[in-house]
């Protein structure tokens, strides 16, 4: 090395390092690694690479405890997305990622670029995206600005997904005041690839060209990654970087161009430019491959004039990728990208130095040894205190009766119809969506030119997680597994999106640790490993944390799409409840919405019962014995039956005897099946030692409660459908 970058003045460097979010001892480590004061570009690289967002410094210790393997797992965490084998030589590639902070600052663009980012994580691995899902958490609908946030987020998700032509097929929505200043936008993409044609990010081949693809670089979101890792303060308006604007049209072209190039043998490695853009992509690709990398910044396609190396390295402009090409394939690759009207530029090459060297017009702006940048990245085992267990709730009297409670519950924000949302999402594009939003517990999308289909869902019950992070973590995984089972699919693996508050607070770290333990236990018991995920910390506003929200995205497979069933039940069928009911009202929606209390321990998750009941239900579905199925979750048994009735437009006569705790308790591991005749299913359950009871049958246009009260399905549906449109009427 002949040239060294120009270091910052020492005092200035120290001050800037704090502004960029590096702690004192972290900055000292930078000095040790470099053996000198960093240049501005180097300081930028260290600060983003060592931000919470990129380094997982608070969470890595815990995440390592999650089970990540199974015979069908092809690539677990560590790649751009998880990869599992789904049969027929195919692989499903999927991941979920948060865009929480950007979505609060600018809801439309924040949500849109969240979708764009997760799509790139998936197609960068060679998979064509076939479905998007979104897990949303909003504040109280009447909180300041909240309608604008809801409106913008929904429009943004639709605007991006609809344009790129990937169907948005599912998701979930909760409302709670604890998200007032910090809504959560978690986006998930599922793609399909040939199992033997997966593209990875480890760079290889000294001398190989480093190629920049996609859109030009502007000054967007500089220091977005560090911003996403620090608590929101009232002055965050001033810290605001230039907001990233998504260009779904460019993304669509990028998908098609990548698919076309990936069909050739030209690519050595490829990675999207996500958080911390060119910095994280180049550092990670070279680091994983154990090679060095040299970039010439004047060759980076630029949207604005006068950009510095520092700005280009930290820019988070969207719709960009970095790729290592085999020698001699440059012209062919360039022709493909030009055809799709995208930028294509050779901006550097791989070296054998193990260093990243950034030059701008010949001047060295950064020169860092890669190994310590990664190996000496901070790793914290933050202090944590376990969340105290809450007492099990005692008996609660029923103040209103079953019927009134049902009308209230089906209309409450957490249970009302999400139609207003999914009506803005194209869920059919691609021509493979067999179960769209609202039709089944999990969305079902067939693989083009195959019978095989994927089932997918996102789940988490944050109020359970707050009350008991470990049970809540288990429950989130169990519900995802159940939702996939309920359509007849075999659950295979999950992605997770861990949304929590400030990890420097021991109680918050305790929530995180508890959730990881619960998720891990459930994944192990259900053979449902974690193959990808994302952590979003510091979700607080003015010191108040969000509800702990470990969102789980699950994927399962059906060998034949014809086997998939949904919620809609035909008339004249018996309704069978599978699973034991104790009448658990602690943390239930009935307790919150009807009794006005948020109390008690949440329902315990018996993983053995989950597995046994679910395997039984799936076998029944695959044998063709079940016409419709719904799991019992929020709102309990009666809400589950009501949802089936509304989905089919057919009523039910309920005969099982039980009080409000029986009908509204949220005991886990339960399913309602609509079957032509109960007897054979009950006999099979009895033989397998599984609790099952006939609770009634489908008939007519009313839901007739055991006490004789009847509610017409039309009345129920009207209440269910009215809530969101009314909330959003003058929302925008």
């Amino acid at each position: 090395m002949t040239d060294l970058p120009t270091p910052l003045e020492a005092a200035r460097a120290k001050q800037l390092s704090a502004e960029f979010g590096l702690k004192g001892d972290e900055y000292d480590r930078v000095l040790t690694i470099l053996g000198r004061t960093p240049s501005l570009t180097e300081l930028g690289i260290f600060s983003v690479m060592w931000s919470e967002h990129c380094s997982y410094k608070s969470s890595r210790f815990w995440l390592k405890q999650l089970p990540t393997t199974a015979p069908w797992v092809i690539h677990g965490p560590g790649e751009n997305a998880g990869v599992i084998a789904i049969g027929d030589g195919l692989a499903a590639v999927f991941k979920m990622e948060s865009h929480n902070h950007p979505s609060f600052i600018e809801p439309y663009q924040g949500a849109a670029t969240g979708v764009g980012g997760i799509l790139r994580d998936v197609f960068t691995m060679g998979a064509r995206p076939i479905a998007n899902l979104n897990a949303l958490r909003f504040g109280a609908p009447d909180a300041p600005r909240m309608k604008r946030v809801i409106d913008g987020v929904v429009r943004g998700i639709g605007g991006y997904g609809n344009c790129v032509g990937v169907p948005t097929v599912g998701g979930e929505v909760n409302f709670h005041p604890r998200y007032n200043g910090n809504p959560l936008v978690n986006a998930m993409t599922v793609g399909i690839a040939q199992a033997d044609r997966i593209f990875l990010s480890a760079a290889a081949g000294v001398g190989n060209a480093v190629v920049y693809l996609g859109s030009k670089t502007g000054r967007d979101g500089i220091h977005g990654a560090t911003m996403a890792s620090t608590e929101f303060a009232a002055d965050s308006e001033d810290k605001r970087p230039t907001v990233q604007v998504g260009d779904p049209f460019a993304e669509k072209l990028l998908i098609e161009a990548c698919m076309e190039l990936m069909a050739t043998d030209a690519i050595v490695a490829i990675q999207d430019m996500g958080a911390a853009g060119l910095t994280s992509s180049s550092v990670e690709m070279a680091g994983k491959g154990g090679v060095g990398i040299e970039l010439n910044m004047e060759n980076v396609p630029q949207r604005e004039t006068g950009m510095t190396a520092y700005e280009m390295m930290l820019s988070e402009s969207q719709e960009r990728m970095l790729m290592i090409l085999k020698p001699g394939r440059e012209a062919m690759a360039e022709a493909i990208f030009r055809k799709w009207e995208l930028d294509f530029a050779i901006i550097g090459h791989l070296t054998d130095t193990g260093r990243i060297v950034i030059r701008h017009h010949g001047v060295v702006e950064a020169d860092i040894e890669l190994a310590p940048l990664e190996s000496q990245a901070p790793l914290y085992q933050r202090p944590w205190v376990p969340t105290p267990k809450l007492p099990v709730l005692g008996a609660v009297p029923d103040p209103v009766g079953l019927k009134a409670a049902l009308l209230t519950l089906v209309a409450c924000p957490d249970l009302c119809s999400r139609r207003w949302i999914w009506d803005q999402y194209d869920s059919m594009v691609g021509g493979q969506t067999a179960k769209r939003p609202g039709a089944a517990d999990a969305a079902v999308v067939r693989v083009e030119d195959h019978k095989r289909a994927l089932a997918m869902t996102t789940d988490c019950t944050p109020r359970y997680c707050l009350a008991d992070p470990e049970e809540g973590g288990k429950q989130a995984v169990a519900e995802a597994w159940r939702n996939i089972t309920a359509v007849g699919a075999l659950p295979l693996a999950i992605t997770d999106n861990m949304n929590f508050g400030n990890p420097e607070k021991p109680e918050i770290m305790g929530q995180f640790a508890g959730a990881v333990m619960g998720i891990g236990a459930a994944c192990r018991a259900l053979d449902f490993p974690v193959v990808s995920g994302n952590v979003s910390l510091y979700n607080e506003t003015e010191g108040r944390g969000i509800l702990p929200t470990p969102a789980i995205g699950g994927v399962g497979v059906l060998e034949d799409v014809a086997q998939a069933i949904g919620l809609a039940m035909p008339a004249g069928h018996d309704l069978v409840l599978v699973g034991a009911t104790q009448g658990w009202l602690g943390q239930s929606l009935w307790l919150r919405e009807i009794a006005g209390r948020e109390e008690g321990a949440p329902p315990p998750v018996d993983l053995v019962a989950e597995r046994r009941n679910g395997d039984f239900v799936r076998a029944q579905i695959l044998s063709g014995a079940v016409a419709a199925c719904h799991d019992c979750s929020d709102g309990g048994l009666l809400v589950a039956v009501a949802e089936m009735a509304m989905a089919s437009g057919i009523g039910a006569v309920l005969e099982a005897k039980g009080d409000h705790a029986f009908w509204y308790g949220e005991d886990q591991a339960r399913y309602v099946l609509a079957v032509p005749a109960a007897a054979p299913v009950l006999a099979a359950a009895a033989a397998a030692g599984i609790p099952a009871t006939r609770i009634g049958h489908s008939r007519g246009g009313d839901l007739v409660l055991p006490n004789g009260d009847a509610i017409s399905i039309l009345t129920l549906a009207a209440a269910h459908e009215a809530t969101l449109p009314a909330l959003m009427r003058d929302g925008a």
Partner: protein
Amino acid sequence: MKAYVTVMPKNGVLDPQGKAIGHALTGHGFAGIGEVRVGKLIELELAETDPAKAQAAAEDMARKLLANMVIESFKVEVR
């Protein structure tokens, strides 16, 4: 009176529309096209007859509703 509110993407903020239009114009054989930016023009008919008050009202509307101040800037002209 009439107020004309022009809302444009802020400098430095990506304008995908402008980019695509510039591209298309060049593709259709128009030469010498540089940067293209696309904004909105909102024409408001106001009952207000005092130009200064109309100006102030329209600016208030732009700030509160017509422009997204995170990514857009605006200009008001009253005639």
